[in-house]
């Protein structure tokens, strides 16, 4: 007999959690003016995607989705580093971390 692993909820619950997290992150990106919080909301959206990938990986017994999660984590680390250094440079130039500051690029 096959050994069963009780993961406590059905697939739809995990999809629901992941989509809710993604939407929360999207709302954060749209509302917050603070650049650091904005970057953090992007991390939240990336994590929602990771959760969805791991869920499907578990439900279909395929490990390749988890490799993709691994690469997403790699890209997220690189993205956070570059984003924060751009933020530091912008802060040095204008003494503000308001995202509206970038409107000056309009010319």
């Amino acid at each position, binding site marked *: 007999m*096959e*050994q*069963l*692993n009780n*993961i*406590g*909820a*059905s*697939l*739809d*619950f*995990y*999809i*629901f*959690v992941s989509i*809710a997290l*993604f*939407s*929360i*992150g*999207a*709302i*954060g990106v*749209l*509302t*917050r003016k*603070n650049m*650091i*919080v904005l970057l*953090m909301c992007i*991390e*939240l959206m990336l*994590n929602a995607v*990771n959760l969805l990938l*791991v869920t499907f*990986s578990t439900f279909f*017994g*395929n*490990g390749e989705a*988890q490799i993709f*999660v*691994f*690469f997403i*984590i*790699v*890209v997220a680390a*690189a993205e*956070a*580093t*570059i984003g*924060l250094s*751009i*933020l*530091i*440079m912008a*802060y040095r*130039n204008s003494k*503000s*971390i308001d*995202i509206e500051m970038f409107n000056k690029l309009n010319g």
Partner: protein
Amino acid sequence: MISVILGSLTIASGLMVVLSKHPIRSVIYLVITFFFISAMYILMNAQFLAIVNMIVYAGAIMVLFLFVLMLLNLNKEMEPETTRMSLFTAVIAGGTLFLVMITALRDTFQYGKGYVQVPVQDAGLVEQLGKLLFSKYLVPFEISSILFIAAMVGAVLLAKREKQIID
């Protein structure tokens, strides 16, 4: 049952990331969210990713965020204001996104019914993932190291103080 509790706690702390006014509180709530997500990974038997998620996300990336927050020494009056109009618009837009994605995945929901118990998988264990990573996905793995070098050089170059260029 435990996954329902974990899921609702995850959503609640994710909401607090967006809602809390103080950036440092946002960081703390985000770390808590990552811990809950790691707990869900463990529940789904993806142990390697749970550990990596905790070490890399909660341990490295969030500490980087905290460093920058402390370095910039932001206080309450520096916090930019969110207008009520933009909040309203964003909540409507995000809610619409949520509804559209839920509706689009409704067929999957039918499939997922009664799938509470899945066979034990060793796909998430270090051995299986390592075999996959170093055979089929070896080239992307090596390319990601180039990405990291590029990111590191870029970060140093961007954050370096250059008076002439700034003036």
